[in-house]
């Protein structure tokens, strides 16, 4: 028998739902606040237990709070996902047919791209080719804005990629529907949308995983084929500023348990 839910769990769930997705430190803060408000047992390192209590009650509803990594900065995030039928049409019964079609096309572009981004021009050019109902460019622009607001896409300088929430929610869907093109990260074995790819053997790695993996290596070599890693290692300067002993330890445990990425 699973642990009982308290109002602290319910409040946590309500706030998480209203945010759509929460970064790890935000979630830890919320955990603490919920326990304080409802005066229930709190231990700062027990967030995952707290969440698994919620999950045991969500399971019969085919829902789950799942942890995932942001492909941009590698930080952990939590989101409530729907396990029942995680296909795009279920994404929210709230979008119209042609909006969903636009999303599907944008997703194709992003997944098929080299770097995990599609430009707004590329996406907007598809607007008048929609089969369900054509869209004016202006309309499509608005729809893209809504997708960003609703945290399905994220945008940087006019380039769109899948939002962390979307990846957490749709990982299984993408892996099974884009079998030949979707890549998995060689380090953490999760779906990789924004990634670097080995020029020799074609394996992919998330940027934060690349960063962590090569941190301790004098010469970056592919973990699979051992060939020289020709892509630029991202954010090396930022890493230098961190305390070396600390990062060294993090690095080791990371390699020993790659799935925890």
């Amino acid at each position, binding site marked *: 028998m699973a642990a*009982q*839910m308290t*109002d602290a769990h*319910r*409040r946590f*769930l*309500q*706030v998480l*739902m*209203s*945010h759509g997705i929460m970064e790890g430190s935000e979630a830890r803060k919320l955990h603490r*606040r919920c326990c304080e*408000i409802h005066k229930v047992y709190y231990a700062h390192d027990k967030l995952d237990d707290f969440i698994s209590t*919620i999950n045991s*009650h*969500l399971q*019969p*509803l*085919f*829902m789950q709070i799942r942890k995932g990594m942001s492909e941009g900065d590698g930080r952990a995030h939590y989101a409530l996902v*729907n396990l*029942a039928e995680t296909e795009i049409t279920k994404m*929210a*019964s*709230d979008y119209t047919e042609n909006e969903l079609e636009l999303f599907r096309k944008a997703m194709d572009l992003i997944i098929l791209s080299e770097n995990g981004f599609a430009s707004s021009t590329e996406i907007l050019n598809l607007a008048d080719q929609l089969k369900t109902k054509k869209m004016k460019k202006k309309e499509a622009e608005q729809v893209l804005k809504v997708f960003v*607001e609703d945290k399905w896409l994220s945008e940087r300088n006019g380039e769109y990629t899948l939002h962390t929430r979307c990846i957490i929610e749709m990982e299984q869907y993408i892996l099974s529907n884009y079998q030949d093109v979707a890549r998995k990260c060689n380090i953490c074995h999760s779906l990789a949308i924004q990634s670097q790819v080995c020029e020799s053997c074609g394996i992919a790695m998330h940027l934060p995983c690349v960063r962590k993996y090569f941190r301790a290596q004098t010469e970056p070599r592919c973990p699979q084929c051992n060939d020289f890693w020709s892509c630029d290692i991202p954010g090396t300067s930022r890493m230098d500023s961190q305390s070396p002993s600390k990062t060294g330890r993090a690095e080791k445990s990371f390699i020993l348990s790659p799935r925890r990425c």
Partner: protein
Amino acid sequence: MSQRKRSKVSGFSQGDDGDEDFNVSQTPTHSQVQRNLERRSQDQVNQKVSELVQFLLVKDQKKIPIKRADILKKVIREYRDVYSEIINRAGRTLQEVFGLQLVEIDTRHHIYILTSNLPRAEGENLRRDNQTAKLGLLIIILSFIFMRGNSAKDGAVWEFLRRLRVQPGERHEVFGDVKKLVTEEFVRQKYLEITPIPLTDPPEFKYQWGPRAAKETSKKDVLRFVAKIQGKDPTFWTSQYTEAEATP
């Protein structure tokens, strides 16, 4: 699952389908529902319950009031004979797992919203995007209406907003089309009720609190908000104070 809070979901009495645009198969009696239930597999019924819970949660995210007709058409479909059981179980699950309550805010057209059962926490901020800003504008309008004696004319509301530099004709940086936000979105979300005042030319409108406003906030909270802004004690407004204290 917890046995607590087994009380029936408020608003879901089954005997009031008189003017229903969607017929719930002649509102079967309790024992009929039980018999129908035996014909269905538990898995199928549970599946429907979880679909309904998800449907309600998605609609609630956008604050869209949920029509019973839509529930029947989009979720229940061929399970109408056990509709009351499915909706009761979904309501119970929403309470037990999410701390949310299914409330019928319009008994004539059977329209429902979800409200939180949890006590409001001080300084709680459920959202941090421009949704929060919109709710800020809303609370100002709700305060104005309450302080005016629970009803205000459209002219007065807009004059008041104009003084806060929120102009109906201009595109606002955060609110976008303010006129649309106030007169359409807030109304659709049931925060505000806007009704024409009879025999006015040009037509005038009366602004009042919508049913969601009363569920999600209280006169007491609103008065406290006004008092804080004005730097006075809530008791300064005698009649509003008495009214706020008398309303749960």
